[in-house]
């Protein structure tokens, strides 16, 4: 019997079909402004892709910001538990998970059995979230995919002192005007967010090994700076973006 996990984030929707042992199918799409519609579309697309019908799916668990808007879901579970479960399945030795989402950043510490033993989320503002990177990439007129690699080329990271997304944006504009190098400014931006995330990790008390899940795990610039600040390796999986959805699918199997 199959189970389905859907993760409706603030930017992207992810779905995972799970057969009790392994991942059968996965799907990712942008959410747009209507998360309810997005979830319907996601489920339909995923079923088509896998060539299955409604009745083949035993349970559906929804997670992410839009979790309560998924009509077909049997249960809604918060991202913390789902990310914990998903990452534990992919990388069972991991004890600390860093997840930088569109609106929320979180650090989760797992016990040896993979249960969440503690977590912390960013405070109310968007400073340490994926949104920060999006806004900065746009300000630098760089595609988000190229943003991380560009940061790695920076030799003297520019100093970005404001943690506020709006103020940091104007700081960047003046750095550009001053003629600082594109790579250096980009590197500075990555240092800025990494420092903020690192302070959350320290607040919670880091337990190694550490992994990153969520979309920002694809950004090599963030990984690199975080590794330098935390002085530890940060692992990722090819399925990093699906951590939440996978955890939801695993939860669905337990229902």
């Amino acid at each position, binding site marked *: 019997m199959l189970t389905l996990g859907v993760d409706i984030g603030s930017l992207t929707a992810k779905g995972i079909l799970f057969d009790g042992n392994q991942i059968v199918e996965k799907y990712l799409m942008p959410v747009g402004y209507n998360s309810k519609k997005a979830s319907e579309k996601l489920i339909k697309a995923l079923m088509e892709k896998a060539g299955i019908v409604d009745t083949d799916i035993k349970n559906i668990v929804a997670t992410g*910001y839009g979790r309560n808007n998924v009509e077909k879901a049997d249960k809604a*579970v*918060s*991202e*913390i*538990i789902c990310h914990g479960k998903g990452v534990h399945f992919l990388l069972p030795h991991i004890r600390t998970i860093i997840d930088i989402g569109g*609106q*929320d950043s979180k650090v989760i510490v797992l016990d040896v059995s993979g*249960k*969440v*033993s*503690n*977590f*912390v*989320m960013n*405070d*109310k503002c968007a400073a340490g979230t994926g949104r920060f990177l999006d806004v900065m990439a746009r300000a630098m007129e760089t595609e988000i995919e190229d943003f991380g690699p560009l940061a790695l080329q920076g030799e003297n990271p520019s100093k970005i002192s404001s943690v506020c997304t709006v103020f940091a944006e104007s700081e960047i504009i003046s750095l550009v005007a001053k003629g600082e190098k594109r790579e250096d400014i980009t590197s500075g931006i990555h240092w800025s967010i990494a420092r903020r995330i690192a302070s959350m990790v320290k*607040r919670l*008390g880091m337990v190694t090994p550490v992994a990153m899940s969520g979309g920002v795990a694809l950004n090599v610039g963030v990984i690199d700076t975080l590794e330098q600040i935390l002085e530890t390796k940060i692992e990722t999986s090819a399925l990093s973006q699906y951590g939440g959805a996978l955890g939801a699918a695993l939860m669905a199997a337990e229902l």
Partner: protein
Amino acid sequence: MAGRLKATKRMKKIMRRYYTQAKYAHLFGKKVAWITSGGPVEPLIAMNIIPVYPENHGAMIGASKMGGKLSEFAEGMGYSQDVCSYAKGDITSSITKESPIPGGLPKPDLLVCSNNICGTVLKWYEIQARKFNVPLFIYDTPFVHTEFTQEAKEYVDAQTQEYIQFLERVTGKKFNHKRMKKVWRLSLKSMHLWKAVLETAEHKPSPMTAFDAFFHLALIVTLRGKKTVVRYYQLLLKELKERTEQDVGAVENEKYRLLWDNLPIWFRMRWLSEKFAGHQAALVADTYTQAWCGVIDYIDENDYMSSLGEAYTRIHLNVGVDQMAETIKKFIKQYNVDGLVMHSNRSCKPYSFGQYDIQNLLREMDIPVLILEADMTDERKFSESQAETRIDAFMEMIKQKKN
């Protein structure tokens, strides 16, 4: 579910009567004093002065969801976004008369301010003293970093004397020591009763939650030292004991027990209480309402002259972070809680700034901590979906941990 406490009705009546009396105080030849929530109120009652609490008014403003609007007005006058929203609400209301109480608070004849709760109240009361052109007494309590020293004791005891002289000057009457003795005893008695009320929550399931405590607190804040308070808490205690005897819980099928830190989020009380109840979680205790019985041990029932100062200096907000953490540890054990919810309150710096340190100091207890960012009355500082995500995640973690 247990439903509402029956005593609530009586409480509302007492509060209504209290505010009406304050409003028409002058008709009865009485004076009105505005006083801070941690201020020494007993001498006022002994002198037949009606105490009025801008902070209690602030809580009402918050509960009526007027906090954001009133704060905005004050910000338009030049007050910073970061100024406590109780202060901003009061300053605005005293100008615009907007208030959940028709006409706002009755005008003060004198002001009494103690900085044992924060530094904000000093400026706030100075501003109001200028505005109303009335005398202000400041009861200055040194911060108790680690211990209450002999020097500190002498310093505050001298102020108790000055305070009494001040009241004599303002009223033109001799201080009534005989009455004060009675008031002091009644005040202590109501603290003991309040403590007993809160301690009924040790029972599983808990007959009350912190949300009840936030509501029933108003009397010990405003009228301690009066017989009404003693009688009311006796009634409340009786009702709560009936619940514990019959194992009636305030939250249906209570499974998880939580401790709350900081002031309530007045404008989201119902939402929060339903949110936690939905997870079968009861907030069984909180550091805020406990503050009104936290100094019992320092009070000498027969000697107010030399114990009033100590009692008012050693309150929860006027002690170091280590001691705050100790108090929290004590409650965690006493109330057998599964987690701690800390309201990081944009308004109240003295209450909020040590929270991360406290969290660190609790690490050895392996108790999950949730930090919720909000404000006690300013709804602009609150995001429901963010709070919801955090509370859900926190409760799911506790469930996972316990099962």
